[in-house]
């Protein structure tokens, strides 16, 4: 686990000093994070890095998880899918059981804190304890909230309205019918993690050698799990069009659960589409292949993220951080990460992606300029230190209603 001081070399001493100043304003406050799992999943990953950093800064940050049985988590899975717009039936009994599990947790947990930071829908009903335990309550929604089923959003809204603040990851997730303050805090990447840290050239060479990728010719890469929504078949079509003009290679690398039948089906279709082209490298990576992903990204000439749908799309920030020119679809949180023709390229189709890919491969100086801007944008807006600062500001905002706060 990195020390907060390790980030000085990346963002500068002044920004770390600013974090210390903000944290100092919170030293007499305790902050309790609550989610539904201690390991696995994006929220647990963020908290496992964020909570120790907050503590290093002197903030009394704590983390607790709610308990639930299989029935409860089946219901929360249904809620999750319904928030994504899936037509799924959630019965009255389901809602009642959900509330009951939250109520039991509220009784059993040590809810002594000044600020309660509740993550995602699973523990949302703990807010019913607010009157008794007092304190400020914020609800952090990590999931796409654009197209929820009506009965689920109505159910959640009955709890959201009791919070002091809500936090979303993208502007499109904000809702007009939520009356409590809605704050935008984007997710982040950790520049010191295995997936993003600097790598020695020998490590990159070794990984490329392992996958038989030629470093002397342009490498076009998409890192994503094998999923129709990431459009790997569209990426192959783009590559085949470009290949007629430029001798490049395509790397499609990513993981996915082997017990996910759709994932395996997509992988097989991708292999079929690649047919006998030796310059298409389809790499199915096991969990924990962070160094491999890092090395492939760093060796790439251009990185694509041609998703049809995307939550936030942090692979874009990873690529920008590595100073790579990126061409990505204008979906989900990607337009927050790329300003078209400034810090990368946003596209809407196979033809558009083909056009810009050819352009970037033919114009390395232009690609370099985009990559440089992209790196700065990622550095200023998508690193864990920015995320940390915004959490500190959020905690402070709970007791400051004014537009300009003088600390």
């Amino acid at each position: 686990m990195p020390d907060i001081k390790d980030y000085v070399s990346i963002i500068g001493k002044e920004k770390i000093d600013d974090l210390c100043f903000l944290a100092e304003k919170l030293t007499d406050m305790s902050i309790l994070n609550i989610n539904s799992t201690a390991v696995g999943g994006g929220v647990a990953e963020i908290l496992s890095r964020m909570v120790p950093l907050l503590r290093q800064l002197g903030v009394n940050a704590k983390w607790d998880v709610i308990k639930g049985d299989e029935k409860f988590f089946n219901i929360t899975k249904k809620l999750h899918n319904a928030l994504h717009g899936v037509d799924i039936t959630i019965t009255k009994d389901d809602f009642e059981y959900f509330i009951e599990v939250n109520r039991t947790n509220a009784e059993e947990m040590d809810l002594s804190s000044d600020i309660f930071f509740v993550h995602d829908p699973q523990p949302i009903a703990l807010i019913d304890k607010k009157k008794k335990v007092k304190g400020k309550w914020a609800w952090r929604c990590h999931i796409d909230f654009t197209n929820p089923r009506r009965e689920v959003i109505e159910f959640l809204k009955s709890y959201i309205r009791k919070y002091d603040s809500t936090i979303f990851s993208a502007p499109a997730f904000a809702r007009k019918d939520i009356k409590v303050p809605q704050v935008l805090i984007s997710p982040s990447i950790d520049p010191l993690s295995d997936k993003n840290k600097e790598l020695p050239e020998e490590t990159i060479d070794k990984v490329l050698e392992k996958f038989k990728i030629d470093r002397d010719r342009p490498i076009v890469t998409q890192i994503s799990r094998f999923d129709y929504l990431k459009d790997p078949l569209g990426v192959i079509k783009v590559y085949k069009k470009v290949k007629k003009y430029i001798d490049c290679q395509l790397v499609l690398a990513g993981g996915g659960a082997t017990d996910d039948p759709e994932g395996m089906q997509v992988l097989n279709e991708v292999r079929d589409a690649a047919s006998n082209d030796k310059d298409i490298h389809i790499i199915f990576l096991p969990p924990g292949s962070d160094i491999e992903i890092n090395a492939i990204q760093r060796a790439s000439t251009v990185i694509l993220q041609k998703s049809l749908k995307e939550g936030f799309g942090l692979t874009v920030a990873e690529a920008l951080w590595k100073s790579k020119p990126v061409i990505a679809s204008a979906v989900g949180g990607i337009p927050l990460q790329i300003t078209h023709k400034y810090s990368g390229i946003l596209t809407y189709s196979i033809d558009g992606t083909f056009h810009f890919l050819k352009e970037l491969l033919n114009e390395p100086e232009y690609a370099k300029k985009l990559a440089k801007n992209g790196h700065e944008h990622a550095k200023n807006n998508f690193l864990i230190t920015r995320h940390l600062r915004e959490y500190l500001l959020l905690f402070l905002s709970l007791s400051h209603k004014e537009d300009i706060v003088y600390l």
Partner: protein
Amino acid sequence: MKNKPFHFYTQYYLVELLGIKARNPEELLKGIKKVPEPSIYYHTHKFLQQHLYLSPEPPNDFGYWTSSIINLKELGEAFTSIDTISFKNLEDLREEFIRILEEYIENKGYSVNCQCGQEFHFMSCKTFVFPTRFVAHDLKEFTKIIKKISINSLYLHIFEARLRKGIDGNDFSKWFKGLGKDKLADEIAKLDPYTITLEGLREKILRLVKKYA
């Protein structure tokens, strides 16, 4: 000459989502009319801080969205050309956007909605201002410090001073004036920070201070 030292402050935003979106110029106009003042500030200044490494354009979100997202180049250019520095307060700046939009809508008479997912989302911000460890007692110290302060601090003393505190010029020019460096103060006050990157601005300030020190 004895003068008050210059205390460098810094600032950060917490971005607030208003849940209001626009799909076309009419909806954009409706939004601009009703959003709170900090929202106008956020959409006309966010780019400067988030994209501080870029060439001076694009200076505001409205201009970027209309020209690059809904492809209304003429309207986008009109927004982009707004001489932000000539406005002394945010309400006047809001009125200028309204005037341009109303004129455009009246002349065009029709509009098309943007693609789903490309809407303009109105946001606002809560600004947190706090002191840094830097204090300059004279121009020599100022020169040393200006090289070190974060871009957020530079931003605060240049931009916030004018539109939100109503200072003619900026915090630096005001202090230089107090030092009796009127020529330097005038030159610093004349800088148009909207047409230069923040790093470019830092260098320019440094050059001017050295010239008059």
